[in-house]
Structures are given as structure tokens and as C-alpha cells.
């Protein structure tokens, strides 16, 4: 189901990130528990992942780890919170994240090796559908597109 190892899964359960701390004019880096600063939307998202019936426990850890990674990347890049996705699982237990903005939509299926995506723009001047596979490195660009932070997907 997932290529997430036991060790990775354990890490995914309580991921940590390095954050900048400003104190008395000095900037220091400190390791913090990424889950300690979850917004209510992300707390809810975590509960949604935990509650999926079709997905395995390793798939849930894998999905949660990636969601936190993308959230942290997004925060670093745009200094904004990535909206929490809608969370589902397909008939094969593959977890799907969906982001639905007023004019842009992105569905990401978190398979083992590659992520499948489908995106659509409902902009009146440029309605466009796209689907395919997406390398892990390119997910951040898809998220920037769906949230309106970039023009291209």
C-alpha cells in the first residue's frame, strides 16, 4: 500500500521542523514539534485521516507526513497557511486530498511511487482541465497554483 517504513511512520506520527525563533533581537533555530502548532483545521484534517476506513495505518501516516511537509513548505514560501484539504480514500485505500478554491480545484491521490493529480480551472476566460502524474517535487507548485499564489500549475 505504502512505501512508508515503520521508522518513517513513527516519525510521521510526531514530525518536527526547524523554525526561526526571534528572541532579544537574535535569530536562533529551534527544533519544534510540528503538530504542536496545528490550527483547528489541521487538527480536524488529522482526525479525518485517522477516521478513514479503507486506508491502512501506514497510508494514513504517509499522508499525514506529506500534508505537514507541504504545509511547512507553503508557509516558508508564501508566509501563509496552506488551506487544509478535504480528505477521502478511494476503493483501493489510496488517500485523496482535495483542494477546492473558487476558481481552481486540485485532487491529489497519494499512491506509492507517484502522485496522480487532476486539476481544473473554472476561470471564465480560461476553463481548463488537466490530469496526470506528478513527481513529489512538483506538488508544491500544484499547491501554489490552486491557492492562487502562482499562475501556472
Amino acid at each position: 500500500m505504502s512505501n512508508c517504513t515503520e521508522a518513517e511512520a513513527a516519525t510521521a506520527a510526531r514530525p518536527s521542523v526547524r523554525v526561526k525563533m526571534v528572541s532579544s533581537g537574535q535569530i536562533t533555530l529551534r527544533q519544534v514539534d510540528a503538530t504542536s502548532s496545528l490550527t483547528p483545521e489541521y487538527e480536524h484534517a488529522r482526525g479525518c485521516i485517522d477516521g478513514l476506513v479503507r486506508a491502512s495505518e501506514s497510508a494514513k501516516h504517509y499522508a499525514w507526513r506529506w500534508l505537514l511537509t507541504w504545509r511547512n513548505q507553503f508557509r516558508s514560501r508564501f508566509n501563509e497557511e496552506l488551506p487544509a484539504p478535504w480528505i477521502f480514500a478511494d476503493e483501493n485505500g489510496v488517500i485523496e486530498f482535495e483542494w477546492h478554491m473558487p476558481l481552481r480545484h486540485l485532487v491529489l491521490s497519494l499512491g506509492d511511487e507517484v502522485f496522480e493529480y487532476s486539476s481544473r480551472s473554472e476561470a471564465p476566460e480560461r476553463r481548463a482541465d488537466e490530469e496526470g502524474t506528478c513527481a513529489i517535487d512538483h506538488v508544491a507548485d500544484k499547491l501554489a497554483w490552486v491557492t492562487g499564489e502562482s499562475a501556472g500549475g
Partner: protein
Amino acid sequence: MIETVAPIPDHEILFHFFGHPDDYAVDAQGKMRLRSHKFRTSHELSFNRASIWPLAEMLRLTPRQFGICSLTAAQLRGAYDPAATPKKQPLDVVPAPLDYDPLLRIPNPSHANVNRPLTKAEAGRVADATSQNIHRTPALITAG
């Protein structure tokens, strides 16, 4: 003699069942949404016509473990975008009465099928529309 079937008008309301807990979600504000790819099925995507079985009848006939959502025939047809997928034929929904509906376990004269599988984007548009019209949520059935 050639039998002709009247097309389903654009204003016709089409009901659809959903039941698996992983096919719908509720956000932190309590808003519900259906899974986009639920409407991208390997088998024929089907609906029930409100002109034959109105909502009250659907609520009475449908097992309680299923939720009921709907969209109009125009919304279903409008999920097709010729500019995005010019090689696809337009979406349509056609009457397909059943002598025996395996889900309802009775004959189903309101049954209708979509003419082809939906693309992922089309399925997303159908999920957008049906998520706006959820008439009943599934009851959670516990075993035992």
C-alpha cells in the same frame, strides 16, 4: 417499429446514492462534500429521475445506510467542457429503467445512465454540484 425514448430535459433533477464513509467528508465548519472521483466509476454512473420518483419517494425507498444527493440534468451535461476535452463526446444522461434494482431490490423505472465514463475533471464538477444538494446523510449502521 423503432421505439423512441424521450430525452431527459435539462431541468430534471437526478438523485444519486452515497454510503461509504470514505466517499464523503465534513470540514471543520460542518460543510459536507462528496469525493470527486466517486463519480468516475468503472461501471456505468447512474441516477434516479425525480420526475418518476420524487424526493419523498426516494427517501421512502432508499435503505437508510445510503445518503441521497442530486443535481440537474443540465449540470451533468455542463460538466463536459469541449474546449478542455474536444475528443470526448458530450455528456448525456439517458433513461435506463431496471426490471430489478439490486440496491433497492425492486423494479426501478426512474433509473438513468450516463452515456460514458466521466473524466476526473468532469467528476469533480459533478461532485461540486451534488455536494450542494445533499438531501440525506447516510445513517451509520453498526454491526451486531
